[in-house]
């Protein structure tokens, strides 16, 4: 019943001999078994695939990002030209760039899906508080990736979206000016901004993400999977299986679906740049990436007008919401995990999602009113 093949009478194959050599010294088979044979209570589930999918998307972003760096240069005089070179001259460059672009959208969507799944399953509750906190930090990093990466093509859209975003951060009391100058590398956006955003996007955030993701997975394994929130012990036991192969298989089907979706989006709308960035916005109306649109629209409301109002709308309110999320496992001590028995949680989740959706769509509608 064990998965090891017994040594046959005729001796081991060459590959088996190599594996046995390493195994004797490192304990390879035990490590592998320990990593893979984790019983998932209630069985592997499609709902659990989002964590692995996020890892897959990150790896794909890293791979396509590295490939893009073969031709992209982060200088104000060549960033735009090199990006256009990738899109128009390099074989399949348009495809890899569009994949990278849509991959970032997929990452944000899956982050929302993963956080929602964890929230609805109550898997942030004791003893999983630390996993949740690290996860929130990872969420922040993903948003940071989106924000910094957006500037790199150095076209009008990139330049002005970043300018507006950093100006908003500037409104933070006390430290706002320092933060904004730090990001811009000066008083106005220019080469220094591009260099800083590039190093943050390509070195600092990836290192941070890899470290935190490793910690996230380690903490998850230490606590064990939470499993389904309902079902009798008999049902749960009957359906229990190991992480490998069933959950891994579901993970990979999820990955392939996401991969194909990103490719399809790359075909449907390949990346097209606007004109090169200039200090004069002209007719162009700045707009951030779609996953920041709801904040963007929020700031258009009259109640957030004025300097302090912009700070409240853009930084204080979202910040307070994130603080609430962070405090969640410590406030919500009820061990009940069934979402249908946690009305506040369910309604809260629906309302937050609805609000974000509403404001995003409103921002899109608002485009027509800008002229």
């Amino acid at each position, binding site marked *: 019943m064990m998965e090891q093949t017994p040594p046959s009478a005729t001796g081991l194959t060459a590959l088996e001999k190599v594996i046995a050599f390493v195994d004797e010294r490192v304990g390879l088979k035990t490590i592998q078994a320990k990593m893979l044979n984790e019983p998932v209570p209630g069985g592997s589930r499609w709902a659990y695939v989002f964590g692995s999918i996020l890892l897959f998307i990150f790896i794909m972003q890293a791979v396509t990002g590295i490939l893009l760096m073969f031709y992209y240069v982060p200088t104000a005089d060549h960033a735009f030209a090199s990006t256009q070179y990738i899109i128009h001259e390099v074989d399949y460059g348009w495809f890899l760039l569009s994949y990278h672009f849509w991959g970032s959208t997929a990452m944000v969507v899956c982050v929302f899906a993963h956080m929602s799944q964890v929230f609805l399953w109550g898997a942030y509750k004791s003893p999983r508080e630390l996993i949740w906190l690290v996860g929130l930090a990872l969420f922040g990093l993903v948003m940071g990736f989106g924000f910094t990466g957006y500037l790199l093509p150095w076209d009008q859209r990139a330049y002005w979206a970043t300018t507006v975003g950093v100006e908003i951060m500037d409104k933070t009391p006390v430290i706002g000016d320092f933060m904004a100058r730090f990001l811009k590398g000066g008083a106005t956006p220019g080469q220094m901004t591009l260099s800083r955003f590039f190093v943050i996007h390509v070195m600092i955030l990836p290192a941070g993400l890899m470290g935190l993701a490793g910690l996230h997975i380690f903490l998850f394994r230490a606590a064990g999977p939470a499993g389904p929130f309902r079902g009798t012990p008999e049902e749960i036991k009957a359906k229990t299986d190991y992480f490998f192969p069933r959950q891994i298989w579901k993970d990979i089907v999820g990955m392939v679906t996401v991969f194909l979706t990103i490719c399809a989006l790359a075909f*449907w709308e390949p990346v097209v740049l606007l004109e090169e960035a200039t200090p004069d916005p002209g007719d162009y109306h700045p707009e951030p990436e779609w996953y920041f649109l709801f904040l963007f629209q929020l700031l258009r409301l009259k109640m957030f007008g004025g300097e302090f109002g912009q700070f409240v709308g853009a930084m204080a309110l979202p910040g307070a919401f994130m603080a609430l999320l962070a405090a969640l496992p410590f406030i919500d001590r009820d061990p009940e995990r069934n979402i249908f028995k946690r009305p506040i949680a369910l309604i809260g989740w629906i309302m937050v999602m609805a609000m974000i959706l509403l404001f995003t769509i409103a921002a899109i509608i608002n485009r027509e009113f800008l002229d």
Partner: protein
Amino acid sequence: MTERESTSPLKLGLNVLWSACWTGFPIKLAIALLFLALGMMHFEARIGLAFLMYLASPVTVFAMPILSMAFEPHLGEGFGIALLFLLCIPIDIWAMGVVSRTVFLEKLRLEPPDGLALSLWIKTALAGAVYMPILWFVVGFVTENSIAMSHALFETDLLKAVPVAEKIGIELTLWGSVSLGVLLVMLLIGVTLVGRVIKSAAQSAQPTGQSYQDIITRWDLMRVPADQGLMLTAVTLVGVVLSLLFWAGLPVSTPHPHECCKKPEVKAQPPYKPVDALNKNEKAITVLAAQVESLEKMKTEEEAAKEKEKDKGKAVKAKPADAKAPVKAPATP
């Protein structure tokens, strides 16, 4: 235990449709991607709709042609669309089979009868073909009217002064919730219909005598093919062939949007521009008002002139002024 809850038609329908949709989806998506890469089909902006129609589930597969004929939701062009539609049929039948057998075993504790896949697929596809156009029409009607009503609301004197961003937000909430509510209700009704179809198919089925653990093991092992080597080799070969086609067809530099489906400069959504409409109306009104004013002025001048003329004794017949010509109202947008 959970048996009683699971046999409600709504839960049953939801279970089967949701699972069948996602079971077939990756395969359909791979084929759709290949067709996109080879330029065999082009989608317009409403790709979300395309997804729902083609890739979602058995119930939509017949509905799509009917809808294109009746209501013209033009999704795109290319013979790849028709081909994809044809290929969805066997995939859906297979997905239906896997899902329905699992549900029969686990939730209903019944032996799945032979030919369940095909019979269920035909019934659900026909049900969809009838129901989806109704849903489309109803939801479309309600949405249009609620949008119009919410606009009208904000054109009243009371609410005219509300700033743009707030107005958009509130309007969207109003018509959005109405539209969404109607859509959800229609969907629930449709899903329950499918649930009833499945339940009637279950009437003739025999109960299995097996224990819970055995049932779980059975449907779990159903997913393991009898000849693994053959299946895996076949999948790999098909994948390799599709990859080769993909490489051959993938455009080397950015594909230009097909003539049919160029993204319009304005949004593809029906452009309702209340401010523009208001402005246009206002302009028209000011023009009309100015015309009326000038007419009145002319009239008073004429009358004054008439008086003068009368006084002078000479009555000059006032020329029928252009003011008599009917003023055409500008066409309302």
